[in-house]
């Protein structure tokens, strides 16, 4: 309906007014023409409008079938039935057909005409009111939509049929101004219908309403004309019939025109829909394009992201590697720092130890000599004699400790002198001879694996001898608890070094202790058993010789001390 409103219908309104004016122009012609006032003209109009009525009925039913609105059906049926009523009226009034009976029914004849008019006015009012109540759109009311007008038709038909037998009151009062008052009353009904339909027309502004409105106007005018008709078939009487003819013509035009308009609207709607669909498709396409673009963008971004992630991962990897390197460097640094601190500590300690040791040399020498003096002046059977001997031996032990401390602190014999060429194998023989008493007492088997024609080493003989002595002494301690005690000494050349290995099948060294084994004052021997300086001194001596000393062990099975002693001594490298 909104679409209908949009249509410009001013043209239609102008044409309605033109038809109305044309109709008014007919009037002077009708009064002057003899033919218009004839009896035949009336009958012709009545029959013609009956045919029109059938057309209106058929079209309205079709229209209803297409648009499914009972409103159209009601209007159509109203017109067609009213017109069919006129058909009966026309036949009845046709003189040649009922010529001999016309006089008998002269009073009844206008009455049939009246019933048609009242029926039509009533139907239009009913249709408007029902449509106003939104009844028309309900298809289920189709029975009522047919039965109601049919019922009214049958009722009016029955009244008409009764009129054949019953005498009817006088309708025409030629002496009065309004000669046919009942017709005038029907004109008022049409006027009411006109007002009601005008409201609808103004609301809808469609062709159908416009034409029906015109039709009602014609009916109203026709009834007004006939109200003033003084006798049958006069000019007013026939013009009224002409108006009725036109009034029936109007819906016959109105319904197909409205149909066309509706089709047009439908077409318009379809076009609009198509346009909208196209728009939709366009926007869809645009959207799709957008989506594609966005997807492409996203893919691009995704690729970039993946690249970035790759880069990040690589960077992370690099970072990790760098971190690992840094960590290991840090560890090395820490280790060397630790060593530095350790060596600094040891240096400080060495200085102090050296000072103390030197200072102690004088008193110890004094004590030793006092003790010896006393021993010499004491009889062997004197009970002080052994005590004095103990003093002497303990003092010697003190002297040994001090000597060891001095070696450890590297204060002793630090100079270049003292180095000479010596054979490690010979040194070992000497050490073993010195310790032969202990070796034999402990029943230790000494195995020797000494390579032939080994060069001699540059060394401080006393120091290296002390190292070998310490190693053998330690090995002897280690194998003490074994049933089959074995110490293996092997000497072999290894590049610029002589490799000396002292292995034993003793108790082994705990991995925990293995780390600290060359630390000064570290010992696992019971208190009084060792100073914890032996291996530390060995290590110091070997290091001073630019050699290397290491230890391997398997707890409970064996221990192995390995010394790499350089054959040639490089003075520049010495500190």
């Amino acid at each position, binding site marked *: 309906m909104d679409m209908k409103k949009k249509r410009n219908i001013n043209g239609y309104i102008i044409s309605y007014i033109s038809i109305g004016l044309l109709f008014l122009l007919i009037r002077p012609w009708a009064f002057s023409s003899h033919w218009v006032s004839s009896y035949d003209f009336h009958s012709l109009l009545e029959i013609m409008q009956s045919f029109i009525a059938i057309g209106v009925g058929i079209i309205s039913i079709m229209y209803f079938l297409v648009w499914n609105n009972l409103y159209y059906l009601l209007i159509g049926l109203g017109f067609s039935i009213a017109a069919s009523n006129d058909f009966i009226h026309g036949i009845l009034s046709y003189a040649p057909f009922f010529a001999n009976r016309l006089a008998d029914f002269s009073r009844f004849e206008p009455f049939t005409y009246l019933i048609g008019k009242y029926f039509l006015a009533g139907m239009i009012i009913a249709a408007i009111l029902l449509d106003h109540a939104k009844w028309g759109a309900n298809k289920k009311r189709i029975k009522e939509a047919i039965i109601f007008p049919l019922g009214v038709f049958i009722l009016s038909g029955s009244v008409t049929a009764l009129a054949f037998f019953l005498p009817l009151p006088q309708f025409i009062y030629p002496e009065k101004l309004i000669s046919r008052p009942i017709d005038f009353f029907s004109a008022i009904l049409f006027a009411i219908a006109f007002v009601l339909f005008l409201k609808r027309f103004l609301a809808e502004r469609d062709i159908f309403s416009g034409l029906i409105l015109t039709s009602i106007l014609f009916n109203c005018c026709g009834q007004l004309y006939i109200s003033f008709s003084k006798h049958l078939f006069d000019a007013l009487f026939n013009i009224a019939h002409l108006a009725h003819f036109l009034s029936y013509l109007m819906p016959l035009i109105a319904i197909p025109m409205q149909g066309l308009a509706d089709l047009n609207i439908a077409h318009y709607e379809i076009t609009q829909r198509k346009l909208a669909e196209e728009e939709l498709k366009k926007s869809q396409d645009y959207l799709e394009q957008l989506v594609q673009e966005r997807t492409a963008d996203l893919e691009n971004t995704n690729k970039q992201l993946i690249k970035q992630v790759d880069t990040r991962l690589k960077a992370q990897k690099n970072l990790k590697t760098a971190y690992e390197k840094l960590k290991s460097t840090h560890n090395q640094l820490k280790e060397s720092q630790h060593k530095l601190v350790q060596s600094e500590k040891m240096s400080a300690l060495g200085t102090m130890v050296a000072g103390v040791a030197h200072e102690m040399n004088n008193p110890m020498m004094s004590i030793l000599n006092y003790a010896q*003096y006393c021993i010499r002046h004491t009889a062997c059977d004197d009970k002080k004699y052994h005590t004095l001997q103990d003093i002497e031996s303990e003092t010697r032990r003190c002297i040994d400790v001090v000597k060891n401390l001095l070696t450890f602190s590297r204060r002793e014999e630090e100079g270049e002198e003292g180095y000479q060429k010596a054979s490690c194998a010979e040194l070992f023989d000497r050490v073993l001879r010195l310790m032969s008493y202990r070796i034999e007492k402990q029943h230790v088997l000494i195995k020797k694996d000494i390579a032939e024609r080994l060069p001699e080493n540059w060394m401080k003989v006393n120091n290296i001898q002390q190292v070998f002595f310490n190693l053998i002494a330690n090995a002897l301690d280690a194998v003490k608890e074994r049933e089959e005690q074995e110490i293996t000494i092997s000497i072999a050349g290894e590049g610029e070094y002589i490799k000396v290995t002292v292995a034993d099948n003793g108790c082994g060294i705990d991995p925990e202790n293995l780390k600290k084994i060359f630390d000064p004052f570290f010992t696992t021997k019971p208190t009084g058993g060792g100073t914890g300086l032996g291996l530390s001194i060995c290590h110091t001596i070997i290091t001073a010789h630019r050699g290397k000393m290491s230890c391997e062990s398997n707890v409970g099975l064996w221990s192995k001390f390995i010394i790499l002693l350089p054959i040639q001594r490089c003075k520049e490298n010495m500190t």
Partner: protein
Amino acid sequence: MSKSILVIDDNKGIRDSFTFALEDTEYLVHTSESGENGAVMERKNKYNLIYLDLKMPGWDGIKTLRELRKIDKDVPIYIVTAFYQEFFNELKVAREEGLQFEILSKPIDSGQILSVTKDILEMQIEA
């Protein structure tokens, strides 16, 4: 005439060590607690052997050595010290200057004192 020995050491224990170690020999042992006094005694007595300490208040061993060599450049002088390292450079210089001396490292016991002394003094007899 028995041979005489001079021991110069600020430490009484060391002086006693030499005295006691050599008490049963025919050697005459004199002691001095300082280098200055030792030089005076050497000038007076002309010893056959001098044991000299290095680290002493007043004149140290090196100074005393120089003074002693001024008096007698042939007498055997044995430097008995625990501080050989400390005076290493000075000793080296002294030796390069032609000053004669030997070194004994402290501590030494009675036996060593006896044997060293005997070795030196008996060699003198042979010579």
